[in-house]
Each structure stands twice: as C-alpha cells, then as structure tokens.
C-alpha cells in the first residue's frame, strides 16, 4: 500500500490549518456573544428579582367608633387611625420630628388599605384589628440590604433609631417579606413601593395590537401587489427604493410625522395607544413589506405555473397557493418588525406617550405609556427602590419579547408546508 491517504503535503497542511482556524474563530465568536448575553440577562435578573418581594408591617389598629361615622365611612380620616396605631406600638416616641420618622415606616397607601377593610366589614368598628400594611420603600430597602450602615447616621435614609424600631418589629414577628403582586397589577406611582408595571404593559400591548392590525394587512397586500401584479418598470423600481429607504429612517421622524398628522391635523387623542400604534405601524410597515416580498420570492415558480397551467386566475394563484406558502415568512417579518416596535421609545416621545400614567388604560383611546418609556422613567427616578423596579420592568419587557417570538415560531410551524 502507498501512503496515498496518509501523506500530508505542506499545501494540505495549510488548508487544514485554515479550516481549524476558521472553526476556532467561529466558536469564539459564539462564545463571546453568549457571554455578553449571559452577563446582561444575569445582571438584570439579579437586580430585578428584589422587586418581586415587598416588605409588610403588621399593626394593631383600634377602629375608634368616634372617628368612624357609619354614614360616611368612605370619608373618615383613616390616616389618623394608622398614625395612632403606630404611636401605640412605639409608645416611647414623643418628639414631633421622631413621630414623623415613625409615620414614614408605613407606606402612604396604608390609610386606603384600612379604609377598604372597614368599608367592606363595618362590623369591625369598635374592635382592635391586626392589619398588614405595605412598608415604605426605605424600610423595604433596609430589609433587602440596600442601605449600608457605613453611611453616616444622619445621611442615611433610615437612621439608627429607625433601624431599632424595625428590629423590634422583626422580633415581634410583625414584619415580613411577601410576594409583590402589586407590581404586576397596578399602574405607576410616585411611591416606589406602590409602583406597578400594568399600565405600561397594557399601553404596550394595546399599541402593538393597533400596530399589527394596521401594518400586517397593509404590508402583506402591498408586498403581494408589488411582487405578483405590479409591472416591473421605472415606477415600481422607484417605489422599491423608497420602501427600502423608509426602513432605515430614524424612528423619531415617524414620531414627528405622527405629531403633525395624527394629532394636529386629525385631532386624535394625545398619549393614546391608538396614535402610538399608528406611528409604530408606519415604522414597521417597510420591514413587513420587505420581508413579505422576500417570502413571496422564495415560493418556487413551479407552484405558480402549476396553478396557472390548470386555468387558475392570477388572483387565485396568489391567494390559494403562493400566499399560503409565503405566510410563515411574512409572519416572521411581521414579528421582527413588531419586536422592534415594542422596544421603541423615540416616536412615542413625540406623541406624548412619555408620561406619568397611574391608571391602567382600558381601551386604545385612553392615555397610556409603554414599557420602554416606563423603564426610562423609573431609571431616571432618584429613589433607590426604583432601581430594582427598573430591572424588573426590563425583565417584563424581555418576557413579552420572548412570548412574541415564541408565538411567531409556533405560528410558523403551524403554517409551514413542504414543497
């Protein structure tokens, strides 16, 4: 036997080396990308996980019949009752300044918690009831270990005396950390312990719904017409160039257009998901058209010939055969465009969706904000507790994206056919 299959010439050695080098570079590129992704997701998750829990404080409140007029239960001064309860718990506090600090242990929400309890069960009046109140953000931060004791006593948000009160509550089992459902079911608030993501989430969801409803049908019909029916001449080339250019226009320009046309000319409601969705649709449209045209072009011509060959009209050929085969690709394009729209802040800036919105919108006409805007607003807030809320909001945004992309994959699997 000769060494025909084992001989390594210098030329062959060089080729093998190139191949190994290329594979190594490819692997390290993937490794770097994954490492960056892990660092990003890891950081956000570790910072945001705290927002899932919230500290609560238990107080014994005497529901004084003299304070509570049964005819006007809704208007009674529940704040006073809460303050009384706090003073009763810490009898040693006498000075006015100290009392103010004491009241700061409990969230300003406490009086409404108590009001709701009394209004729903008026029979409790005259008794002393144990109620769990949401703790203030400063207490929450201390419990979560975000306030360092090395900071000077007077500069700390929670000084030594307040720390003692809190330790006292812990010792009496009157302080505990619970799952923070409020974060998911309420709107924004100036108080970090009360702020929730729902209004921004609903705003984003409504906007995307409007965006999809407008841009998907318009986009695919434009793509089908341009690809299957329009004559290939100077005009169609001109339109194609313009669509490609539109896809690259900075999104804030679409925001300005929305401001000028939708708000000022048509007088549509400001800050509403309707207008937000319309602006995002303008931005998404070129992406969908380009992706849909590529999907249509990828359908083999033999399918068109088969349909036309047995006498299907052009419309029948497109809608019975070509479009269904291109649908998965069109959906993918739409989802890519929508994912971009979900993360977009700049165009919303122009139409007033960058706002403090505490109420959860119920329709596309009510003022709303969007997830990326909410993230920006919280990141910009001075309170320490908003830091973890910001990260938690980013996690919600990422989950929204993952759910959208997953549904795109599932839809694509469902519609995909072999040909």
């Amino acid at each position, binding site marked *: 036997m000769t060494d025909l299959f084992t001989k390594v010439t210098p030329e062959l050695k060089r080729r093998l080396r190139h191949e190994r080098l290329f594979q190594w570079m490819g692997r390290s590129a993937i490794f770097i990308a994954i490492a960056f992704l892990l660092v990003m997701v890891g950081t956000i998750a570790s910072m945001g996980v705290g927002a899932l829990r919230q500290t609560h404080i238990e107080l014994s409140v005497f529901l004084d019949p003299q304070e509570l007029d049964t005819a006007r239960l809704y208007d009674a001064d529940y704040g006073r009752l809460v303050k009384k309860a706090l003073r009763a718990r810490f009898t040693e506090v006498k000075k006015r300044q100290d009392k103010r600090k004491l009241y700061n242990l409990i969230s300003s929400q406490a009086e409404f918690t108590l009001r709701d309890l009394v209004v729903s069960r008026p029979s409790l009046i005259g008794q002393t009831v144990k109620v769990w109140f949401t703790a203030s953000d400063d207490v929450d931060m201390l419990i979560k270990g975000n306030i360092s004791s090395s900071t000077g006593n007077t500069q700390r948000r929670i000084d030594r005396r307040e720390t003692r009160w809190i330790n006292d509550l812990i010792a009496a089992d009157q302080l505990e950390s619970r799952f923070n459902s409020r974060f998911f079911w309420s709107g924004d608030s100036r108080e970090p312990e009360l702020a929730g993501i729902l209004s921004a989430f609903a705003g984003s969801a409504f906007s995307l719904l409007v965006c999809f409803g407008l841009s998907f049908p318009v986009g695919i019909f434009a793509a089908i017409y341009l690809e299957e029916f329009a004559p290939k001449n100077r005009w169609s080339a001109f339109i194609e160039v313009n669509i490609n250019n539109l896809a690259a226009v900075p999104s804030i320009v679409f925001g300005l257009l929305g401001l000028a046309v939708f708000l000022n000319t048509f007088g549509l409601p400001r800050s509403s998901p309707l207008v937000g969705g319309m602006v995002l649709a303008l931005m998404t449209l070129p992406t969908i058209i380009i992706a849909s045209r590529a999907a249509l072009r990828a359908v083999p011509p033999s399918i068109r*010939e088969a349909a*036309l060959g*047995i*006498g299907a009209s052009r419309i029948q050929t497109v809608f*019975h*055969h070509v479009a269904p085969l291109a649908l998965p690709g069109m959906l993918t394009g739409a989802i890519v465009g929508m994912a971009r729209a979900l993360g977009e802040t700049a165009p919303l800036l122009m139409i007033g969706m960058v706002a403090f919105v505490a109420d959860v919108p119920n329709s596309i006409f009510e003022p709303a904000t969007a997830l990326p805007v909410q993230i920006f607003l919280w990141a910009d807030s001075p309170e320490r507790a908003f830091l973890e809320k910001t990260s938690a909001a980013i996690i919600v945004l990422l989950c929204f994206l993952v759910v959208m992309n997953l549904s795109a994959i599932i839809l694509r699997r469902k519609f995909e056919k072999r040909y």
Partner: protein
Amino acid sequence: MSFQLIERQILTSGKRQDIPEQPPVISTRDVDVYYADKKALDKITLDIPANAVMSLIGPSGCGKTTFLRCLNRMNDLIDICRVEGDIRIDGQDIYAPEVNTVSLRAHVGMVFQRPNPFPKSIFENVAYGLRIHGLTSSKSELADRVEDSLKRAGLWEEVKDRLDEPGTGLSGGQQQRLCIARTIAVQPKIILMDEPCSALDPIATAKIEELIDEMRANFTIIIVTHSMQQAARVSQHTAFFHMGKLVEQGETRQIFTSPQDERTESYITGRIG
C-alpha cells in the same frame, strides 16, 4: 401554401392507417417569439392534428419549449416575451384580445418538466381545478371525477387508501402522474407536456409513456422531449426545431427513417445536439 400541399401529399402517401384524417386542432402561421430583442422563434408554421401525439424535438435552446408555452399563453407571464403571428385552436385566434387565458388554459392543459403537485392532499390536488372552474355540482360528483381522473392517470390503485396524504409525499413518477390526473380532471382538449419524464427513472418513464399512448384517444398531446427513443415510441408526428426554426415535420416514422433535411439527420443520428 403550395409547400404545404406538397408536404401533405408526402404525408398522405405514406402508410398511416392508424391516424384518422381530421382537420388540425392547432394551426400556427409565421409565429415569431422575441425575448426582449432576441428572436427565439422564427416563422413557425405548423399544423397539429387531433387525437394524436406530436413530439417536438431538437437540441437545447432551439425553442421547442418556447413554442409549447405559446400554445397556452404561459409566455404571457414573462414580461419581456413578445409573440407575433397567428396561433389558432379550433379556428380561434388565441392571442385575440377577447380571449381569456383562464378558459384557454382550462382547454389546453399542461404537464411540466419537474413534477409540481400543490402542497396539499392528493385529493385536493386533483379537485382544485374542478373547484375553480365550477365543473362539479356536488361533493359526490367531485369525488367521482377525482377518482375517474386518478384512474385514467393510472394512479388510483396506488393512492386510493391515502387520498388525504400530501401529494408531495409521493415518489417522483407518482407525482408526475398526479399532475397528469390534475390536468385531465378539468377535461382539456389538448395537453402540453414539457419533457414530462426528464426527472424520472426508466420504470416511471415507461408508465408515463404507456399512459400517453392511452390518452391519445381522448386528447391531442404535444410533447417536448430530449429523448429520441421516447419521441419514436409515443408520437405519431414529429417536428424538429433547430435554432429557433422549424426545420422539418412529418410522420414520426418518416422523420426517423428518412429525414429530408441534413440537420434533422445529424440530430437524430446524434451528431448534433
């Protein structure tokens, strides 16, 4: 015209008891086809008789497929393609402005080079043409027509138990027979076949050829083929194309045994092509 007469005399002088005398179904006069500025076909004048198989042969790029696609106006789909001259089917000019390609193509069916079933079930593949042309009035009639078409395409026995399975899951030869069933379901008069066996193995090819021979009783078939043996086996008439020109046409037997033109002779003996 006199040339035509002479040619017809040549044709009629031969032995051809198997071909009944009938007026031509398709007649083309001086057909020129251009792709942009390039002339692909030059003055094609050809009569195609009914209920017979005519094969179009010639080297690659000679224009035989282009000619075939003129007959059901599939060339309309190519923007740069222009057809001049006169093409008549049953006396009707098919390029007249009032002609509608949908009914033309229902009348002139086509089977393509590569089997191209729809990515739908076997049943739907055959039923589609019937549905869009509204040829059946009830579900049972539709099922009967599908069964009948599949039987005539010689595929029924192989697929009757799996009509719901995708047509794309069949073998290449079965797919091509499915395409033939799909074409004959709408009952065209003429069937154009563009190298229907070029992507198939010899056994599948033999089945299709057998099928073509049976179909001759009901349809006029025009087949483009690269295989001289196939042309000799399945067709009664042959037309030889070379560089966009129709060089010679006549009875298959005569073309293959005593070609009049030396280019034809070179081609069938394998010297060009």
